[in-house]
């Protein structure tokens, strides 16, 4: 049996560690670069609105609010109607109008609401901030105009503040950092397999 001195063992461990760390770094960098290359950013602009009926002396306030709240899913469906999108298109600046037909507008638009609130939020998601802002504002205006034409008994639409550059959300996918970490973890694994098998064959087989 070959006896190994402490310094020899340290060297072997050191070489293994070197290979492992190297592979970790290389794979991490590679994955990170691929992710960065494939990166795309989505811009989400949002605008709030309320659709409600006005109170008058005869109505029961709480049941009116309830009724308005129950209509919200209906309004959300109307929002996704082509008629509204067509109207919204007219409000868009020429440049954006060229790229976005009514169908494209509808694809980029979603809406959401909270269970205890009367507020409906319109979201527009595109790859350009200005476009998202323009679309969401246009949709708000279009909905306000079109709703009474579509449903005579609907409430009146109050649009809250317009979306602008300052309140746009951005999502950048895929995250280069996350990919780099996964890459590094995989690199370490590959490094371990390679360096350990070389060490095994070199030192543990006569």
């Amino acid at each position, binding site marked *: *049996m*070959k006896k190994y001195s402490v310094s020899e063992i340290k060297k072997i461990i050191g070489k293994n560690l070197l290979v492992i760390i190297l592979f970790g770094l290389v794979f991490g960098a590679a994955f990170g670069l691929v992710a960065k290359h494939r990166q795309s950013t989505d811009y989400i602009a949002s605008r709030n609105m309320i659709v409600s009926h006005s109170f008058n002396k005869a109505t029961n306030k709480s049941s009116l609010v309830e009724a308005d709240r129950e209509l919200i899913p209906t309004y959300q469906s109307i929002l996704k109607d082509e008629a509204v999108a067509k109207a919204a298109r007219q409000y868009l600046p020429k440049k954006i109008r060229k790229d976005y037909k009514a169908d494209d507008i509808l694809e980029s638009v979603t809406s959401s609401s909270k269970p205890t609130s009367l507020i409906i939020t319109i979201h527009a998601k595109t790859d350009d901030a200005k476009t998202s802002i323009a679309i969401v504002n246009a949709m708000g205006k279009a909905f306000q105009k079109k709703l009474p034409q579509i449903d005579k008994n609907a409430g009146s639409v109050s649009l809250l503040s317009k979306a602008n550059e300052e309140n746009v959300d951005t999502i950048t996918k895929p995250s280069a950092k996350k990919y780099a970490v996964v890459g590094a973890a*995989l690199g370490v694994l590959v490094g*371990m397999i390679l360096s350990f*098998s070389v060490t095994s064959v070199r030192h543990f*087989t006569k």
Partner: protein
Amino acid sequence: MFYLRKVKQINQIQLSGENIYLFALTVTLVVSFLANTTFVQYIAVKNFNRINYLILGILVLKIFILDNYRWYELAGIFFVLAIGVYSWRVTNNNVLMIMLTFIFAAKGVHFDKIIHQYFKVNLTLILLVSVYALLGIIRNLSYVRTDSKIMRYALGVLYPTDYAAYVFYLILAYAFINYKRIGKRQYLLFTVIAVALYAVTNARLDTILILLIIPILLVAKRAGNSTHRISRILAANYWSLTLILPYAFGLMTVYFNPANSIFWHLNDLLSGRLLYGNIAFQQHPVKLLSQKVVEHGWGGIQGLKMFKDNQARYFFIDSSFIRLLVVYGVVLSIIVIGIMVIISVRAELRQSYLLPAIILLITLSSLIDQHLLEISFNPFLLAFLANGVVVTSSCKSATERDVLSEKV
């Protein structure tokens, strides 16, 4: 006359470190095994624990008084044992503390004797407990698989897969003791045991592990002969899998994504272990030292009740390695995995492939099984400081050296 002779015999038993250790080991093995059975319906676990702590005290005395250590070695051991005690207080789980104490107290004890004792005690106990459970003296917990309606029996142990794990480790101990004699007959016996075990416990993964003993041991035995190049190369790599496999498993658990179909199929194969491991990482971020993790498993009478009444409460970390990292922390993980790798590498350096094979099988088992750290199941970590594992210059004669190096 007989009794007088017996008393004289007992009086003459030498209080060597080795005898003290083997006595302590026997007591702990018996007590810990019973604590894992439905005997706990009659004797509370805390009584078993008290006996164990007494034994640990004796072992600590052995380490610091009887064994010859240099002062810095003692300091290192004290440090590790202190971390073990800390982990016990924080996690309310004494398993690692007990294992560490036995590992470090094993200096000067022949490893052969340890495994022999383990085999005798555990084989006796498992047969006894199985018979008692079948006779109804203690409860034979039975679980049903919801999809296939198959019954799984634990035969006195607290859960069917625990029973299967006991059998697995017993076979490993048998393989260690009879390494030279192991051949086709023994492999057939292992297969028969595996099939019978599956019929009783329906422990799929544990049964596969028992079947894996056969090829891994085969390669190790062939590698002992230097003309079998391929087996040599394969067996020479056994040690690295103790680092690679837990790491890969850890990556799969951390990056587990239920939406991905590949991950989901893997998770099904592993009976949900990836999912629960992932939840464990999210709810209990990994710390340097131990932290408390509340678990609700299927084992025992309470577990069976939960199995029947409220399955949604289930949360258990089955993988020993995930458990090590999440519950016991980074420092203890490095220490335990380090001990396993050192045992394996030391043997590989001497072209001895039995212990690396056993450590590999324990690694594979511990990926899906939580018994790596329990001395009642796994006695093989005790090879770290025990004698007869490393041929040292303290061997008395050349023949003894040859015998030892040929054996392990």
